[in-house]
């Protein structure tokens, strides 16, 4: 199947009994896993949608997921600060996590897997970035990266760097080998402070590196005229990799209530963001040439997370209406 975003279509739609918070495919593309507004880890089999809920890893909501590179294990990060390893192909709901560690003080908001497969990055409200041995859960490296909540962490595809982005729009590049700060990207447009409501809002909610290595994209929201009332618009800050200068601010006209929860690049260099807000749920697509999106695909309900399948042709989306949906990015 060729990649063609203009022929995108929802091909699977499976329900849970609570609103979903996050989703990830396993790297062998057998299942999609979801976190929800409960303490369980929910696995849907891609072939038939069969659902299994695993428990025992977390006391409260799972906010972040990542698959190991070999696809044999799924890691979950919770609002309880715990990081849990699970066997992807566990037979039934009686399976318990392989291991659970107290990884952070406060929420874990984001996880990512190193391109070499050996490391897992975690980050959260304690401002720490921690790198874990994917195989045995040992702490490999940690550093205080931010003073405020870290919303996003992502490895560079080369494996040499890891990025962290926080509530205040600080976006930092670190050396994986040493934990040394390399440089910062100015993503403060993704942060807003509302004096009337006295709240900091926004943050770096998605980070992605283009396949050709020329751009670093950071996503979130701007024009937050009413943060407490969900009035804000999705925004991408596209940086030139070499200079770290802002190349473009990419927007989605007419979406007056939305936020980008995650960014990922497609194989052809198209940037994809998942948007959720008062205007509904969308997959929004940009190329590096323009400021406006080149296409958007409306999802049946407000989305909160997405994941691109290992083959790059399907997208899983986690929704408020308790459904996980699989969208095919091309013709049937």
């Amino acid at each position, binding site marked *: 199947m060729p990649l063609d975003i203009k022929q995108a279509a929802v091909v699977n739609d499976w329900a849970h009994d*609570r*609103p979903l918070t996050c989703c990830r495919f396993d790297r062998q593309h057998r299942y999609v896993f979801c976190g929800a*507004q*409960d*303490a369980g880890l929910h696995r849907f089999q891609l072939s038939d949608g069969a659902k299994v809920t695993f428990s025992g890893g977390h*006391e*409260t*909501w799972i*906010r972040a997921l990542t698959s190991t590179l070999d696809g044999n294990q799924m890691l979950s990060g919770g*609002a*309880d600060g715990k990081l849990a390893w699970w066997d992807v192909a566990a037979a039934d709901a009686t399976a318990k996590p392989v291991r659970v560690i107290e990884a952070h003080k406060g*929420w874990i908001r984001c996880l990512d897997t190193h391109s070499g497969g050996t490391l897992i990055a975690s980050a959260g*409200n304690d401002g720490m970035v921690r790198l874990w041995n994917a195989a045995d859960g040992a702490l490999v490296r940690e550093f205080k990266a931010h003073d405020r*909540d870290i919303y996003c962490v992502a490895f560079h595809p080369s494996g040499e760097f890891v990025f962290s982005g926080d509530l205040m729009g600080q976006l930092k590049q670190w050396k994986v080998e040493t934990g040394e700060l390399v440089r910062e990207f100015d993503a403060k447009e993704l942060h807003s402070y509302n*004096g*009337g*409501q*006295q*709240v*900091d*809002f926004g943050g770096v909610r998605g980070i992605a590196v283009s396949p050709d290595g020329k751009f670093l994209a950071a996503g979130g929201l701007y024009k937050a005229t009413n*943060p*407490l*009332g*969900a009035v804000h618009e999705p925004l991408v800050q596209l940086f030139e990799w070499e200079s770290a200068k802002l190349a473009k601010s990419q927007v989605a006209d007419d979406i007056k209530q939305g936020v980008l929860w995650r960014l990922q690049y497609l194989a052809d260099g198209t940037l994809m963001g998942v948007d*959720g*807000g*008062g205007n509904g749920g969308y997959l929004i697509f940009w190329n590096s040439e323009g400021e406006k999106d080149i296409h958007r695909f409306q999802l049946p309900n*407000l989305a909160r997370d997405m994941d691109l399948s290992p083959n790059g042709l399907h997208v899983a989306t986690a929704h*408020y209406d308790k459904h996980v949906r699989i969208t095919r990015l091309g013709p049937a």
Partner: protein
Amino acid sequence: MKVPYACGSQEHLLARRGFLGTVAAGAGAVVGGLNVFSESQAMAELASEQKRVVVFNMHGGLSQLESWDPKPGTDTGGPFRAIPTSVPGIHISELLPLTAQQMQHLCLVRGVNTSEDDHGKGAYMMLHGRRQTPASDYPTLGAVVARTVTPADPSLPGHIVVTPGGSGGRGNDAAYLGPRYSSITLGNGQPPQNTERPGALTPESDAARHDFRRKINERFLNRRRTAVADAYAYSYEQALSLMQKREIFDVSKEPAADLERYGTHDFGRMTLLARRLLENDISFVQVSHSNYDTHNENFNFHLEQVAEFDRSFSAFVADIATRGMLDSTLIVVLSEFGRTPNINQYYGRDHWSRAWSVVMAGSRVARGAAYGKTNANGTAVEDGQVDHANLFHTYLQAVAVDSSNSFDINGRELPFADPSSHGIPEILT
């Protein structure tokens, strides 16, 4: 020769104490209105020890589920956990770890049902103890406390509101009690406006002009004494006193270490100011913390806001207790309502008045207690239901004011609190 008041009533002989105007521009000039009332029983209810009330107004509607009545593990519970407190068996949100260590001083009222989901109406009810009607207006708790608890002829106003923003000045919240009991707002915790002697005016010339004013006033009063004139003269003297004691409103005079403990953010500074004001015998202080109207991303915003509150509030309660002021100080944490158990599509919670919480501490309030109960997922009160009127009575009773009494305003009896309601005896000792 003294000229009697026009009606010759005893009420008017007392009226000069019932007047305080606004501190206006210039060298503490005061302009005010007239409040006429009788020698009420309220003054007689003054306790032997000066009572004080402090209200923390969680503006916008604090979520009871992210604070005093968590429901972890339920469909409404949200992502935060409950933690134990210093009182065995009482758990509160993990967002309040420092306050949890002060639980032995606190009383959680978990069965509040005010049935009003509108911001303005809810705030009115919680601060006035009654619903607003087109035909009537009532004084706020601060005005009632200032009227019933503050000593006669205080040198400082008895009703202070500390709030983010605002330029300062006098509120219009005392209704029939008159402007003397209206709040003075300390916008951003700054001292009252226009309370500094203009630089161009030397102390000597300032004193001389006040002497001159007093002489003229005295001459006038000797011939044509009226309530208005008396009150006018009195308000000038209180304004002068306020100017002389301006430092009381200056939180920078507090030790830097205390500010660090309370938190260097605005709310920390304003809470420390509240301690300073109470220690200087201001009867009523209200501190606002903004903003909790979290229809969107309720959990992120509560992380941010409640963490601020926790640090400042816990330090405040601990200080009031260790300084021996808890027996004479009522502490209240309220909002206009709580937030919905249901979590909306934006990870938000909306307005919810049917099952939420208020916290009290100090004075006659039971300590280390939780009164009232909501159901498993917090959608309804199961036991110990109370409303704004019950709470208003209780606040007054906690500081030794008989809430069934009335003000005598021009011969009309106007009850301190809603006469159809009553306090909550179960939480008063």
